[in-house]
């Protein structure tokens, strides 16, 4: 009899423990975003300060190499989500929204919506911009003696077979196509990128690789390639780590933005704490801290005032008037056509 009572008591205690654990678990927010250098810096600049301010919430950063894998994982978990928040590319977030993965993003999630730049809000996407990045010109300081100021440096014959370009379907290639098109006299990239493609065909014979690995920054830092294109934020961080070997320039013709958005997963396990984190991530303080840390331009218009001049000058914030307004949701519709043009008319010329 006593034994049974003991057993019951032990069982109840175990049950209570399990319940307590699951209650505690509810305060663990799982955030998925890019792994590697992004993760390192985002955790330092945003996640850790958030957890310090909210000791009852733990943010678990689940890093993945790209937005596509994030979407794949979110799809697989659609019936029982384990992830609360995703930071991913805006065009992938559109697909996720269409599939009902993200909960609506409104004032109940964050009070900062009104302060975000208009580019941070895309119609039909249940997620808002959390970082702005832009394409830049990269060069190896040993191989390129005069600091280039124009994208045209890529076409300079002295760097033949030393040019590193991440080709389409990578969106660095897509952004580059739009910039080139504008430089070559194109007026509406949604209608046609013909002028850009013709100009890219001239670049093709000079290209060393269309598929720089592990990314475009390493081969240029090490001198395997002399010049190329890449994203500003990563380039700035790698430039600091390269002992001055990697040079980064925002060319005078301007550039185009890449937008990472933050979205709340519908039915995620830690909904309330997750909303709290999203609100924090979009706040001027967090935005400013991440710009200082990794040179992504802020999406909150009130953040700029908090950022040092030095950090701000390494983003596109000072050159907003020169930036091409790329509508990524429209570009998604013509992406296959651009890829086809590259494959038929550009890449074959480099063989």
């Amino acid at each position, binding site marked *: 009899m006593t034994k049974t009572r003991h057993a019951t008591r032990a069982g109840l205690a175990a049950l209570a423990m399990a319940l307590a654990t699951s209650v505690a678990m509810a305060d663990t927010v799982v955030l998925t975003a890019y792994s590697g250098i992004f993760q390192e810096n985002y955790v330092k600049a945003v996640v850790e300060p958030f957890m310090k301010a909210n000791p009852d919430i733990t943010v678990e950063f689940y890093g993945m190499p*790209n937005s*596509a*894998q994030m*979407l794949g994982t979110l799809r697989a978990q659609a019936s029982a989500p384990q992830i609360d928040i995703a930071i991913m590319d805006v*065009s*992938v977030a*559109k*697909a996720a929204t*269409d*599939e009902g993965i993200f909960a609506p993003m409104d004032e109940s999630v964050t009070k900062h919506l009104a302060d975000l730049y208009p580019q941070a809000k895309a119609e039909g996407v249940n997620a808002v911009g959390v970082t702005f990045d832009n394409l830049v010109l990269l060069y190896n300081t040993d191989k390129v003696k005069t600091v280039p100021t124009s994208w045209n440096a890529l076409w300079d014959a002295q760097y033949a*077979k030393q040019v590193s370009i991440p*080709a389409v*379907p*990578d969106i660095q290639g897509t952004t580059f196509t739009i910039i080139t098109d504008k430089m070559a006299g194109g007026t509406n990239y949604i209608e046609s990128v013909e002028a850009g493609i013709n100009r890219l065909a001239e670049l093709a014979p000079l290209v*060393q*690789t*269309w*598929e720089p*690995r592990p990314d475009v920054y390493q081969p240029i830092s090490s001198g*395997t390639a002399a010049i190329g294109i890449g994203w500003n934020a990563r380039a700035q961080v790698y430039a600091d780590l390269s002992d001055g070997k990697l040079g980064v320039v925002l060319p005078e013709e301007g550039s185009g933005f890449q937008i990472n958005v933050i979205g709340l997963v519908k039915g995620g396990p830690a909904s309330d704490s997750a909303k709290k984190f999203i609100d924090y991530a979009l706040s001027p303080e967090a935005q400013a801290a991440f710009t200082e840390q990794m040179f992504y331009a802020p999406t909150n218009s009130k953040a700029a005032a908090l950022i040092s001049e030095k950090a701000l000058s390494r983003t596109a914030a000072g050159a907003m008037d020169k930036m091409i307004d790329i509508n990524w*949701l429209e570009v*998604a*519709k013509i*992406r*296959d056509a651009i*890829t*086809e043009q590259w*494959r*038929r008319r550009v*890449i074959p010329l*480099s*063989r």
Partner: protein
Amino acid sequence: MSAVPTTTPVPAAPRQWRDGELAVLLLLPIALINAIGFILPVLNLARYSFNKSRVGGGIEAVFTWENWAGLLSDPFYLELVFNSVWISLAITLTTLVVSYPIALYLHRASGAWRTFLTVLVISPLLTSAVVRTYGWIAILVDDGPVVGAIKALGLPAPSLMFNIKGVFIGLTEILMPYMILALMAGFGRLDPRVEEAARTLGATPSRTFMKVILPLTLPGIALGCLLCFVLAVSSFITPKLMGGGRVFLLATEIYDQAIVTLNWPLASTLSILVLIVFGAALWAYSAVLRRLD
């Protein structure tokens, strides 16, 4: 001594398995694992190939032949299949030619020397293909040692990296251990006495090789070729790293469609197509084996 008839006690009869019963029982676990881990995902993949892809990576769960029709009518994809098959065949053949003498030598070696050489042959498998590929990049780039040596000889130096040549060299080296092991496994039928007999009867070394050694090692050759062809068609890291974005193959295209463009239905269609190519290779292999028997 006369034989004394003895009666040995008859042991209790063990449980008799009916024909096939034991086989089914033994095959059940692996069949189950295969069904869950392979058949189901492949069926799922086949189903995906009939879904419709939306702009930006969305998937619409409908039933459409669009992906298949698109694939079969677009010359780019037909070229992709053709390229993948001929490049893989050429790599397989090259791997065979360079591996055969090594395998034959290893088969004839004995003792510690043989063990040492075998370990040497297998050791590349202990390093990841990614690491070896990066090694090749360092060796074959335009300012690397190989191109440098060719230039030093006063010859026109070809570009060996970030093009089809790089993929060819890299994959051949990566596949060699597999080919050598498959060949050695198939060399079991090669009895040295048969070779000796051929030589005693006056056959020249080349005739002995063509008429005796080669026919006897054909099963090993067929096995090695099947293995290397399948590995070559499905390899994507080496073409991705060494092809410089100029070499379009089935495996790299599946990666791009699945991971970059997010067109999962098209990626699934291409994957099923690769499976069909594998089926054809397997059919050719069994046809060769039947002929040999």
